[in-house]
């Protein structure tokens, strides 16, 4: 799973930037070399042609002036011109006047001359009067000049163009090398500067998102991400103690001393708290007057000792503006994995423990699962009253957990799990609200909302080119909705989604209790092509005949059997039996709650090829899941 920390830094950013800048440097050097070469070459050729034209015009004037003596005079002049050259050039002159035509050829082979002449003659009369030709690696310049009666063609070979080109190439190659060297220098400097700036900004953003401004302490988001990252790295279940510390009556302190001093007090308080902790313990500012401490690998005894140390430290007065202020605190403690192995649930449990301590006027309390029901009672009333608003405001979000091929690590499908993004309580797990919804009369609305959201999500993924089937959990009450099948069918048709992309998951308990009444809907789903699966298999008391008659596509073995099957032989036997049963029914099996490599390997060796669990990924929000599908389609394989 991609964590918040990994999202902040693109590890290859610097390399990519350096590579891009080097390519740009190379391209700039090449462009510079090519353009400079062509420019110099064109200038050289142009100068040569202008010089030839002047010579031709000069000869033309001589021919005109000398009349019959012209040929002799021109011969003399050309001999004079040739004598000034180190190496006499090949030259051809053709003159036509009223009395006829005569030619002069010096050192120009006849075959070459014919080739040059044919190319010059081939040019249309309106074309250039002078030009440059390359024949068999030799360069020739030609010009045609004429006045009223006389026309003249002068062709010469050119050695100076070769010399000029050699000179240009020599200088250009060295100066291109220097340009490239400077460009590389600039590229490295610039790319490093940009990468540093981006990293600094990312770090600042990360700090802003995960830290509290007042105390500089990390926030709850940081803790959740830290724990998820640790679990991902170590592949170990979560072990440790979570403490929630609340400053009693802080509101009164704030009102008495003023908010400025209240803030000062919070800073001093957090500072003292921080000093009392060991380096491996993580202090978090949860909200206003609440702080969380995560003490990894702490058991109940160590947590109790830590509570003692903290209460002793924090009961000492705090000095604000020379005024000693005594604070009383209350602490709630929850332990992983005894109470839960999910950090979000642990946070809720510390809250329950804190309320319990307050109720008993005690300084601290450890979470007692039996008290949760009592707490739930109060919370239930509140949640029940907030359900309608939550549904209207779409506070329920679908999280997605991948189902993975154990052999390849490939994500085959996803299970959609509802989470309540409560405006005050944060993310509320389904255990806290599903039964409320079932009892509230909102169950049909909620079921349809879940199906609609899942289908819309499948559609969004499809438009991005990702085809991932999604399973939704439905309550048996949803299946009592007579129109649920037609509702689903029309949605699938509207979004143009194949029915097998949707899967309905039902708990075994639900199916066994309500099979008679829900069979119509189940058959309806099967008829339109939607897949069916039994969730939490092994926990209900259903008869095999019931299961057989359901004709499901998938059986999901409950996490209770999977999580300790490597230590518990009876659970291992149940898993084996479920696998045999599935084979007999001709359906696939998915193991829930896979938490480590050993379990994945064991399942694979038993013949169960599909798994789901925290080993691969916890349920994650849509955006993170989409990123996972795009960038890490393969999770750890066996």
């Amino acid at each position, binding site marked *: 799973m991609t964590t918040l920390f990994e999202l902040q830094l693109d590890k290859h950013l*610097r390399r990519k930037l350096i590579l891009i800048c080097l390519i740009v440097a190379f391209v700039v050097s090449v462009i510079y070399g090519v353009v400079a070469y062509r420019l110099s070459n064109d200038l050289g050729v142009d100068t040569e042609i202008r010089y030839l034209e002047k010579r031709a015009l000069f000869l033309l004037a001589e021919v005109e002036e000398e009349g019959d003596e012209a040929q002799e005079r021109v011969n003399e002049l050309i001999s004079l011109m040739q004598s000034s050259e180190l190496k006499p050039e090949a030259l051809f002159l053709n003159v036509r006047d009223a009395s006829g035509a005569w030619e002069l050829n010096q050192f120009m082979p006849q075959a070459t001359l014919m080739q040059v002449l044919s190319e010059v003659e081939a040019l249309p009369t309106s074309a250039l009067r002078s030009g440059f030709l390359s024949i068999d690696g030799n360069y020739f310049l030609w010009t045609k000049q004429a006045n009223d009666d006389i026309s003249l063609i002068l062709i010469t070979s050119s050695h100076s163009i070769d010399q000029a080109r050699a000179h240009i190439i020599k*200088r250009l190659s*060295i100066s291109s090398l*220097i340009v490239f*060297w400077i460009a590389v220098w600039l590229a*490295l*400097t610039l*790319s*490093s500067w940009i990468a540093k700036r981006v990293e600094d900004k990312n770090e600042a953003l990360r700090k802003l998102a995960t830290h509290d401004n007042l105390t500089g302490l990390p926030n709850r988001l940081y803790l959740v991400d830290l724990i998820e990252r640790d679990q991902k790295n170590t592949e170990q279940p979560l072990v440790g103690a979570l403490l929630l510390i609340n400053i009693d009556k802080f509101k009164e302190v704030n009102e008495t001393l003023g908010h400025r001093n209240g803030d000062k007090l919070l800073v001093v308080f957090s500072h003292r708290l921080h000093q009392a902790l060991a380096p491996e313990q993580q202090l978090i500012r949860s909200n206003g007057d609440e702080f969380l401490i995560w003490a990894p690998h702490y058991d109940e005894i160590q947590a109790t000792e830590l509570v003692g140390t903290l209460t002793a430290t924090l009961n000492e007065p705090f000095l604000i503006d020379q005024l000693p202020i005594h604070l009383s605190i209350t602490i709630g403690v929850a332990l992983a994995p005894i109470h839960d192995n999910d950090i979000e649930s642990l946070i809720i449990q510390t809250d329950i423990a804190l309320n319990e301590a307050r109720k008993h006027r005690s300084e601290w309390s450890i979470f007692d699962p039996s008290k949760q029901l009592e707490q739930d009672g109060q919370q239930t009333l509140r949640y029940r009253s907030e359900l309608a608003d939550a549904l209207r405001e779409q506070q329920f979000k679908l999280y997605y957990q991948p189902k993975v091929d154990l052999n390849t690590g490939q994500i085959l499908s996803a299970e959609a799990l509802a989470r309540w993004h409560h405006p005050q309580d944060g993310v509320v797990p389904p255990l806290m609200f599903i039964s409320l919804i079932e009892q509230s009369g909102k169950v049909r609305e909620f079921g349809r909302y879940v199906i609609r959201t899942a289908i819309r999500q499948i559609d969004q993924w499809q438009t991005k080119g990702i085809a991932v089937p999604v399973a939704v959990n439905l309550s048996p009450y949803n299946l009592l909705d007579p129109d649920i099948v037609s509702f689903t069918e029309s949605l699938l048709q509207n979004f143009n989604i194949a029915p097998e992309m949707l899967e309905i998951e039902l708990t075994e308990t639900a199916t066994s209790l309500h099979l008679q009444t829900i069979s119509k809907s189940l058959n309806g789903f099967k008829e339109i092509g939607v897949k069916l699966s039994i969730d939490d298999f092994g926990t209900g008391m259903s008869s095999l005949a019931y299961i057989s008659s359901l004709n499901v596509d998938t059986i999901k073995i409950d996490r209770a059997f999977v999580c300790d099957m490597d230590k518990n032989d009876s659970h291992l036997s149940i898993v084996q039996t479920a696998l045999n049963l599935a084979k007999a029914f001709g359906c696939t099996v998915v193991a829930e709650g896979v938490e480590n490599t050993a379990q994945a390997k064991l399942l694979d060796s038993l013949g169960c090829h599909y798994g789901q669990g925290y080993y691969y990924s916890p349920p994650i929000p849509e955006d993170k899941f989409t990123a996972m599908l795009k960038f890490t389609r393969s999770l750890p394989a066996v």
Partner: protein
Amino acid sequence: MIKPNLHPWDRALRGIIGVVVIAFALFNGDFLEEPVIEILLFIFGALNLVSLATGWCPVYSIANIDTRSK
């Protein structure tokens, strides 16, 4: 504070390049006939010799590159 960031091979290569380039800039006769290029080559060679002497490359330093064996 100069912290060396060049592997001995990198350092030696720069030394060779530095000597060759400076020698070329000074003794190329009529080959280049361009003082600007000669001066630039001389600077390039001299910087390479500085890297040879100190084991430190300023551009590597800015780009956070280190070729020494870890």
